[in-house]
């Protein structure tokens, strides 16, 4: 969290993250080019580079796409998500290098502008097998550029989180374009079934992880609850919420994070103002709800970030009756203070009622 923009807000974890990513990339690129030059002495350096950079970008995009669902399925992967934007920018830069080399190699030094050549050299747009696959890669690169260029929090703030999120969902369009780029390009020339199998495995991994995560979240959204008292809806027994943690429920189509802490219960929107991270998967730390994605914090009773930060999320009326938590599904305006429900007094009233 920060109150002013910097080019990049470096911290130790980000540095460790980036050094690790660059080291793994260097390992991959070095292995590809080194082994390629050794096993294929006739191969030209530019061909090896184009292939190494292209496959690196495509593989990294798989990693980027898998981190989200992996983190939902296993919280231990959350640290990989913390600096995922740097992975996205790195993917774009690798793709740009691949595309730049390819554009020069295949289209430069000819009788038309290379960018024009990209679209007119192969006129077989009506064919599947002979489709101009390089154009697909070009459009994927444009999307990756848009995402990389708007990855900074400046754009997140100015575009608004939902709009920013929608823009960045285009990564799936880019991924589909790149799968087609590889299928209609390299796989039309290469004959080894291993390469086609590797692509299928990659796509299957991305799809299955997303489906598994979606199935898990669907259970939250499909749980049916009925209003029982002045519009309040019973969401769970208070005992089911671990101390300083939350349970996530879907009320009137909106996910609500219901936190238990210090003998009290508060309910706020589940969507972090920063990147729509799942606040309900976070923790109460230093008295604040802390987002598991990037550590943005909110006071549970008001949904407002502690000063000097300015983020706010909607709050919900909550009460605890006889050990059951009730939440009103109508969201309060951003940052509205709501008195937390007291667990002890509720249980005390229950004991009194039982003794009478």
């Amino acid at each position, binding site marked *: 969290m920060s109150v002013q923009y910097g080019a990049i807000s470096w911290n130790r*974890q980000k540095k460790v993250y980036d050094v690790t990513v660059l080291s*793994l990339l260097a390992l991959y690129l070095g292995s590809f080019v080194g082994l390629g030059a050794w096993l*294929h002495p006739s191969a030209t350096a530019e*061909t090896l580079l184009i292939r190494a950079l292209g496959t690196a970008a495509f593989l990294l995009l798989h990693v980027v796409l898998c981190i989200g669902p992996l983190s939902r399925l296993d919280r231990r992967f*959350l*640290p990989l998500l913390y600096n995922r934007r740097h992975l996205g920018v790195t993917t774009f830069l690798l793709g740009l290098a691949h595309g730049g080399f390819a554009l020069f*190699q295949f289209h430069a030094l*000819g*009788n038309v502008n290379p960018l024009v050549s990209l679209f007119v050299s192969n006129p077989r747009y009506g064919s599947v097998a002979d489709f101009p696959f390089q154009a697909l890669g070009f459009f994927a690169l444009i999307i990756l550029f848009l995402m990389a260029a708007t990855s900074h929090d400046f754009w997140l703030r100015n575009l608004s989180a939902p709009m920013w999120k929608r823009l960045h969902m285009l990564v799936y369009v880019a991924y589909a374009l790149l799968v087609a780029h590889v299928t209609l390009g390299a796989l039309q020339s290469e004959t080894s079934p291993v390469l086609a199998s590797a692509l299928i495995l990659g796509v299957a991994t991305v799809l299955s992880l997303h489906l598994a995560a979606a199935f898990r979240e669907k259970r939250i959204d499909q749980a049916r609850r009925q209003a029982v008292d002045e519009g309040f809806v019973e969401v769970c027994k208070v005992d089911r919420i671990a101390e300083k943690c939350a349970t996530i429920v879907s009320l009137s189509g909106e996910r609500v994070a219901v936190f238990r802490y210090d003998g009290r219960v508060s309910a706020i929107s589940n969507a972090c103002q920063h990147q729509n991270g799942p606040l309900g998967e976070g923790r109460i730390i230093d008295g604040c709800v802390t987002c598991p994605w*990037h550590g943005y914090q909110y006071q549970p009773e008001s949904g407002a970030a502690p000063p000097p930060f300015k983020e706010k999320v909607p709050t919900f009326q909550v009460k605890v009756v006889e050990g059951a938590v009730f939440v009103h599904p109508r969201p309060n305006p951003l940052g509205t203070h709501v008195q937390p429900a007291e667990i002890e007094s509720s249980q005390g009233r229950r004991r009194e009622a039982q003794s009478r």
Partner: protein
Amino acid sequence: MNDFYIGYLPKAPEGLARFLRRVIAALGVLAISIALLLVMKQMRFANSIFEYGKVRGFEGTIATAPYPSLLVERPGMAGPQSKYSRYLLVAPGKHGADELVAGFDGKKVRVQGQLIYREGGTMVEITPGSITPLDTVPADRESTRDLGAVTVTGEIVDSKCYLGVMNPGQGKVHRDCAARCLSGGVPPLFVTSNGVDQFLLVDPEGHALGHDALREFVAEPITIHGELLQRGESRLLMINASALTHMAGRIQKAPPLAERHE
């Protein structure tokens, strides 16, 4: 609480850090394994050479048709082989050498350039402005022999990339480059599916094809029918480009040619 990660804190919880170290090690092994797999499973690269940066001098007779060539006399040549080695000539980049050799047809010259070769096919990328006429006797015109009609299956490529400037210089990935090279005047070559035979493609009159005549048909499997000619050590396949079709490509049979001399 111990396993909750906050990125802006100095250190990750120890248990989580241990897990992440294992994940990173696994990713490292995966990176090397995938690189090895992809490199090993690539198709073989052809044994083709472009002597980039190595400029040599050549002496021979320029033939501008059907495509610019340099006929270099074989020293002490005897037997059935052609008296001359034929080097196709191209300009730098994706361009043919028509402009560079204009005015030198049939003349003995010295030319500088970079050699390109693959399995007997040879080419020189001319250094612009390096052609100098010589006052020696030019080569005899090579006779042309009609080898009859043939139907062949293979791929249309641009001769410059196929012979060595790019590797691979054929196939779908190279398609756009081949189209651009042909469009720039690089001579079109037909390579049979088994890679054994190569024919320079010419029109039914034996002249150079239009630069963009084959653009739609390059780098895809195609069957073509044409009249085959032998000229020196080169084989020319006369085709009607306007009659080419995708996949089951058929072209009109060219009129039979009597043996002729240019």
